[in-house]
């Protein structure tokens, strides 16, 4: 009896320990996404998430964050005008996202990342790729919207697109800002499913609203 009790204690201890280890490491890594500033740091972070995903095998979030970190690296390259890097980065992100999607089909957050990957590919040659990648990006976002209409990150994506599209092409800074505000309002009421679930984007909306032209 004592032995059994002891064994049970030990088992629950180990299980509890391993659960917290996943939560702990994920919480820590997720928190550090926003702190990262360089491409190399994003690469390292994507590798960290990949490692966690490979170990856990049933969790989609590590792969999701691996893809997200790679996309962030891509968006950084895009801002710096390194268009040639975007295709390989998009391919890398797609690999991680495919793993996440296999574990969690029809998830709005994954579709939002899918939209971002198509967006990166489009930026390689917008004129030539608008019809293909641009369409696929729009498809992914509209699918996400059907699944989770109140998701503030969907609104954030739309806000970005509108904000950065020249007026001649149907964009507008003012309408972009309206959407950033709408996204911010959604952030206030949107509940993430768990502490580890995607919760990024609020800062970006705030940044744009604070830096109104």
């Amino acid at each position, binding site marked *: 009896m004592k032995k059994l009790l002891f064994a049970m204690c030990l088992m629950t201890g180990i299980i509890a320990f391993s659960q917290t280890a996943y939560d702990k490491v994920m919480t820590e890594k997720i928190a550090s996404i926003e702190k990262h500033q360089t491409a190399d740091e994003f690469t*390292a972070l994507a*590798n960290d998430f990949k490692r966690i995903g490979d170990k856990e095998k049933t969790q989609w979030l590590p792969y999701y964050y691996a893809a997200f970190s790679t996309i962030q690296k891509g968006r950084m390259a895009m801002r710096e005008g390194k268009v040639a890097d975007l295709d390989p980065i998009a391919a890398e992100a797609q690999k991680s996202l495919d793993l996440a999607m296999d574990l969690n089909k029809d998830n709005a957050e994954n579709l939002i990342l899918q939209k971002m990957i198509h967006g990166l590919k489009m930026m390689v040659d917008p004129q030539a790729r608008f019809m293909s990648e641009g369409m696929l990006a729009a498809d992914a976002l509209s699918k996400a919207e059907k699944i989770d209409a109140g998701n503030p990150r969907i609104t954030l994506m739309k806000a970005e697109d509108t904000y950065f599209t020249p007026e001649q092409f149907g964009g507008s800074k003012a309408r972009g800002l309206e959407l950033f505000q709408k996204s911010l309002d959604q952030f206030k009421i949107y509940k993430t499913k768990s502490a580890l679930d995607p919760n990024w984007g609020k800062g970006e909306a705030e940044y744009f609203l604070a830096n109104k032209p």
Partner: protein
Amino acid sequence: MPTLFLSKIFALVLFLMSFFVTAQITVSGKVNFKNKGVKDISVTLKDTYDGSTTDENGNFFFQTSEKGKQILVFSNPKFVEVEKPLLLENDAITINAELKEQISEIDAVVISAGSIEASDRKRATVLLTPIDIYTTAGANGQVSSALETLPGVQKIGETEGLFVRGGTGAETKFFMDGNLVNNFFGNSVPGIKAMDRLNTSLFKGNVFSSGGYSAMYGQALSSVLILESIDFPERNSVDIGISPIFLSGGFQNVNDEKTKSFGIAAAYSNLGLMTKLLKFNNTFTKAPESFGTNFNFRLKNKSGGILKYYGSFDTNRLGLQDESLEPETDFDNTSLKGKNTFHNISYRQKLGKYLVNLGSSYTFNNNMIDLSNTYQESEFNPNSIDITGNYFNAKGTLERKINKISAIRGGIELNQTRENTDVAISPVPYSFHDRITSVFAETDLGFSNHFSAKVGLRSEYSTAVNQWNLAPRLAFAYRISKNWMSSLAYGTFYQNPENQFFGTHDLNFQKAEHYVLQLQKSEEGRSFRVEAFYKNYRDLIKNKVENYRPVAISNNGDGFAKGIELFWRDKKSIKNIDYWISYSFLDSERNFQNYDQSLFPNFAAKHTLSLVAKKFVTDWKTGFNLSYSYASGRPYYNFLTDDNGNYYLNTQGKVKDFNALNFSLNYLPNLGKKDSKSFTVLVLSVNNILNQKNIYGYNFSSDGLRSKPILPSADTFIFIGAFISFGIDRTQDAIDNNL
């Protein structure tokens, strides 16, 4: 006591656990590739969270509390994954790794000697995009004209065909989804250049090879243009084109899953109004008029196999009256009636490791030319030439990938030709039959991301020449540094004598050998390419006049072409301006057909220069395109025949240099209007805006004493057109279904 014992155990467990937790040991090391540290390598202790990523110098370090036998994995998409076993005890451990490059399609060097690819794939050989064809001034949206701004292609205005590197127009063959396209250009009469028969919008890309091309293609001494049709259209649409010279309409339907699509289109064109508004160098008795219709469908099966069909039917007419050079004759009258139907079907399917490509094309073409002369308002000398051709092509290719960048492929091709020429004044019609059976095999060998090779062999048997040939092809590509690539191609190419020259004499294949050396630099937004080539022609046909027509009597002709070509494209240096420059130098001599000696070919210029520039002004929703072409003066020859029908050179000369500045403008009024139901492009283009008087050559009277220049149909040509595309709006369907 037992509780005390238990608590002791607990204390021990806690102690041990805390020991495990805190007793971390350090794993560190360095990761090298070719003895140099590499960054961004993921180092993972297998099946744990522990690991790190290498820094700038290839160093890594992390801490772990794992114990015992473990495996350390080094991974990065660019390198082959390496696993290293290690034993974790109490001491820090250092472990280094040397990586091997991962061979991948993205990083592998691509053989590009002789070829220019226009597609939206991101590859080293891609120098143009499909949109570039539409936005090149002077190209009028035609693939063949846009190619004239590339190195190696002559700007020939009086005859259709692509004249590449000292080759005749007949030496370039056209392929659609792997199948031969006979009569790529519309029917025409000498001196008037016909347009491309296939609409540019059918294609998602093309590979234009000006030498050293793959063993998959044959029967072309100079060049091939390989067109790849669109798999599935992006959406349903209705398209309309309006211009003073044409009217076109069509629709394209595609299902949501993009597994089925069909479309139909029709176009009518008539140059009548333009001949009244603009000054033409030709006197049209019947302004060029044409009607064409086409139909397509595409099907995709569950396993991803794609069946594509495209079929067209068209007719065209024109009539000309030119002042005659002959004595006691005022005018030469020519009129043309053309009929053509073309069908192309292709099927592509993956079967395990194999890729199967099957395709077939069929062309029926009829060209009826009526000739006569006018003297003092009465017609005489009536004659007509009626050419009817039936062309059938079938091709099957099987391809197997060996590793990521290596493949082996082989196949068989069949070409059948039946041509009948009826000349009214000739007593017997002339008919020509030929069946060419070809087998080919080729292998792509990727040795590393820096070095690859292509080895191919093609063999053909033609019933018309009653012989087999054997054509080896070989090409290499080597990456010199990150941005610089070199490639080298060699090949032997055979082509039958042109159908119309077959007579009673035994003939053989004509032969060309190509040597192409290329250096290319590609960096963000800029590409530079220099290519040197040498072509050796053997067994070209020699002609003689027999029974009132030129007939090939032997394969004793020969020739060479050599040159150097430059291409520079830059989207970066001048803000918002995208431009390319190509320059070609050609030295060539030929002794063939009716040439009685080695001469610089009359269809080639020594120096050719093209400059293409584009700018899109977003605020005005307008694209401005400019192109300038220069070609040094081409030689012209007048050959006469002696009593035995042998040709001799009577007169020769050189025309003045060719110059043309072309301009076009695309205005997209609905651009960016989110809720707009149509997408409109208004086009204004002016070819030869400076109205330069260009001359292509000279026509001579039958005694060679009088001559007159061969001129473009119009020195300056203006085109205005509107292309409107309506994406089919489904809201109406939704409303109808809910009523």
